[in-house]
């Protein structure tokens, strides 16, 4: 075999072809395949994470529901207690109010009675003075007989 320019031409072709195969075939395709691999791995990881998140969320939801139930029961209990308290308070205040009213009425009645008694006494003394003066046909000095009149009024 002779070493000819053909050999040189083929070497150049080979080297250039390696360069181009690397540039237009190997690099783009392996980059793309790597990207695809990464995408798939990411997708699987995301799916795994999603499942885990869902499990966590379900657990959390159950916890929240339990808590809410407990709180609701507490609130209902409190409300019942409060309502019975309110009813009791209302009862008590009504009772005391009624007592107060009754008491006030009694006091007023007593005062009225006393006032009437006083008036009566006054009237009686006036009537007695008037009666006595009529009988004696003489002016009686009220001041002179004040003690007498007072005794008389006290006897009524």
């Amino acid at each position: 075999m002779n070493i000819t320019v053909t050999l040189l031409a083929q070497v150049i072709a080979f080297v250039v072809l390696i360069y181009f195969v690397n540039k237009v075939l190997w690099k783009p395709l392996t980059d793309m395949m790597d990207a695809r691999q990464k995408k798939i791995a990411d997708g699987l990881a995301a799916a795994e994470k999603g499942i885990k998140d869902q499990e966590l969320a379900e657990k959390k939801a159950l916890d929240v529901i339990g808590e809410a139930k407990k709180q609701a029961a507490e609130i209902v209990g409190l409300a019942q207690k409060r309502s019975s308290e309110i009813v009791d308070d209302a009862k008590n205040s009504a009772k005391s109010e009624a007592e107060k009213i009754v008491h006030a009425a009694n006091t007023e009645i007593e005062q009225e009675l006393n006032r009437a008694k006083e008036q009566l006494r006054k009237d009686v003394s006036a009537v007695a003075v008037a009666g006595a003066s009529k009988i004696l046909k003489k002016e009686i000095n009220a001041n002179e007989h004040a003690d007498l009149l007072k005794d008389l009024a006290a006897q009524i």
Partner: protein
Amino acid sequence: MSASEGSSGGGTVEYIQHHLTNLCVGDCDPVTHKAASFWALHLDTVFFSYALAALIIIVSWRLGRSLQTDVPSGFQNFVESILDFVAQQVRDTFPGKNPLIAPLALTIFLWVWLMNFMDLIPVDLLPLLASFLGIGYLKVVPTTDLSTTMAMSLTVFALILYYNIKTKGLIGYGKMFLFHPFGKFVIPINIVMTAIEELAKPLSLGLRLFGNMFAGELVFLLIALIGGSAAIGFGLLLVVPLQVVLDLAWLIFHILVITLQAFIFMVLTIVYLGMATTSDH
């Protein structure tokens, strides 16, 4: 190639020789059409190998513009599987990482396979078409030209030397010649043995591919001669079917051969470069 040469008995050798002669331009022997000095270009070899290289680049470029990341189409799938196959070979046989090895292996596999594939085109078809254009000689399979196979194997050899020196250092590589494989007491033998071992790498690479493809081409030529050498008449009834059956059988077998040869060239390149980049020898 014209039929008149094949029709006579004495034309058989001439027919085969004619087929195995390159289209030589430049400084060529006017009688044998062999290269006479450095300035002789085998135009057919260069033309077909360059055309196939251009085909690889153009198809790759067109594929690269329509790459689908999510749902690859049929052809992209096919190319991806070739890439995966080559990458797997590199992973299996090449120690460490090197950005050059995989593209190199892929280039060898694709280019050698395509050049070998030219062997499956009927042997007389392209030379006959060329003869209409006034081209007297045409050898369509670039890998049946030693210039092609040796060009590749010598490039690989240059890379072997480069990586040997890069990994082991000039002194380390020299030491390998002195103390390998028999230790420090038989240095002269070691030098000869290691030199043979190193030189055998490019030679075996280039000659194996050349030999296989040359022999395959020769068998195609011989099969083509069966019909061509029979006289027009009764003999054709028997001989033509025989030629068709034999040609088909060799064609199918040859698909295996061309793939295997491309694969071997690629794998041996990876192995040799792997050996060159390992420092412990």
